[in-house]
């Protein structure tokens, strides 16, 4: 099972087997299948461009077989690579089938060689990069940097329109003010209550509520209406509180109140 009997050319040398075994010990030390392939390719002791991909595939597959033998679990990507290399190997060994679609074995091998060379190049560049004169190790920045003070200056702005609108706002507010002042002609129920509470103690007899209107509110009709309504409402409130009795002899007759005897 390990050896492909039909493929005697590929019979693994003892050296290759030993080498595979050595790699197995270090399987965790590889950064993936490509890294392993790169390491394997070094054993060929040739320029990466001249590496035999076929031989590489063989080496890799023997590595995987060895791992299986030793019951070492390989990560999935190692197995994916193994399957692909097995496919590649067959492509490289069998005469090309004109019917078959897809890339030729040579194309696939060339790409693998490219990937290996590229990875190798990146490794070298990484090493060169890390070997450069580095800041904080070979080259130094200013040891006592001076603080740059951030001075925040706020610039306020306003437009002429803002200004006029602001003024308009204030002015319109002034213009409303008379509406507020109009309340001068309104006698509120609270005001009527205040007034009547002070006077009710003296109302031992029936008295027309009209006599409770505040001074000076009888002449102006608007003021009289407001005062009368407020006084009437206040009277009802006082009745509710139980402080006065209220009566009207007939429709349109005067409304009269009298102090409730039993209070206080």
């Amino acid at each position, binding site marked *: 099972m390990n050896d492909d009997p039909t493929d005697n050319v590929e019979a693994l040398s003892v050296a290759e087997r030993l080498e595979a075994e050595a790699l197995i010990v270090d399987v965790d030390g590889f950064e993936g299948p490509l890294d392993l392939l790169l390491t394997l390719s070094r054993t060929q002791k040739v320029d990466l461009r001249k590496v035999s991909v076929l031989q590489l595939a063989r080496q890799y597959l023997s590595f995987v077989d060895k791992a299986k033998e030793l019951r070492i679990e390989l990560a999935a990507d190692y197995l994916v690579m193994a399957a692909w290399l097995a496919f590649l190997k067959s492509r490289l060994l069998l005469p090309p089938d004109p019917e078959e679609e897809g890339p030729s074995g040579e194309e696939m091998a060339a790409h693998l060689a490219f990937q290996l060379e590229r990875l190798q190049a990146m490794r070298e560049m990484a090493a060169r990069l890390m070997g450069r004169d580095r800041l904080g190790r070979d080259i130094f920045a200013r*040891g*006592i940097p001076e603080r740059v003070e951030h001075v925040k*200056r*706020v610039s*306020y702005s306003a437009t002429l329109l803002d200004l006029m609108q602001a003024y*308009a706002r204030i002015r319109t*507010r002034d213009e409303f003010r008379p509406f507020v002042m109009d309340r001068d002609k309104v006698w509120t129920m609270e005001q009527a209550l205040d007034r009547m509470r002070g006077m009710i103690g003296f109302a031992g007899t029936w008295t027309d509520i009209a006599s409770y209107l505040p001074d000076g509110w009888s002449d102006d009709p608007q003021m009289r209406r407001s005062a009368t309504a407020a006084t009437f409402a206040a009277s009802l409130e006082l009745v509710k509180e139980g402080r006065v009795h209220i009566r009207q002899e007939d429709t349109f007759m005067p409304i009269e109140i009298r102090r409730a005897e039993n209070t206080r």
Partner: protein
Amino acid sequence: MSADQGDPGEAPQEPLFDAPILAEQERMVEAILFASSEPVTVRELNARMPHGCDAAEALALLRKRYEGRGVNIVRVGDSWAIRTAADLGFLMQKETVEARKLSRAAIETLAIIAYHQPVTRAEVEEIRGVSVSRGTVDQLLEMEWIRFGRRRMTPGRPVTFVVTETFLDHFGLESARDLPGLKELRAAGLLESRPPPGGAPTSGEGDVDAEEAPDAGQSELFED
């Protein structure tokens, strides 16, 4: 990358030592002073430089080299450091200008001053219907949009405020008289917002004091 052994004619008198030539020593002092996180003593310089160096001499040269430059070699106690030249301290400030809208209180105060000048703070408050905070007036003074005018010849001799040239400049006005009048404001639709009859004043939500504002005569003030 390699330490170039500078001008050979520079320090021919010290061939006995293996020490770097003086120019090289100066470079070393320069680099050490630059990179150190604290001022460095001559003793420390000598300790860090190759054997046979004379840090004090190199330092003296370096100090001379930086005379009149943007940074100088200065003595700090027993130690030495590189510092920004005193006259360039202003460069160590980074000014960021943040544009902000003037607050409502400020713009209203400003508007009143512009339309009613010269006007006292009490009058401004009367017209606004709320008190004017000291900060608001200070801000406008600081911006140089208002300044103090003559004192009023009334009891207490209160100061008045007037708008400045800077203000006129900013708002593109030739004089404060160019400010549009009430009629024009109305014509421009700026005064149109009439309150619903009997409703509360529409103005500022925040202006609790608005209703207490007296009916005082802004008309009088207008006659100015």
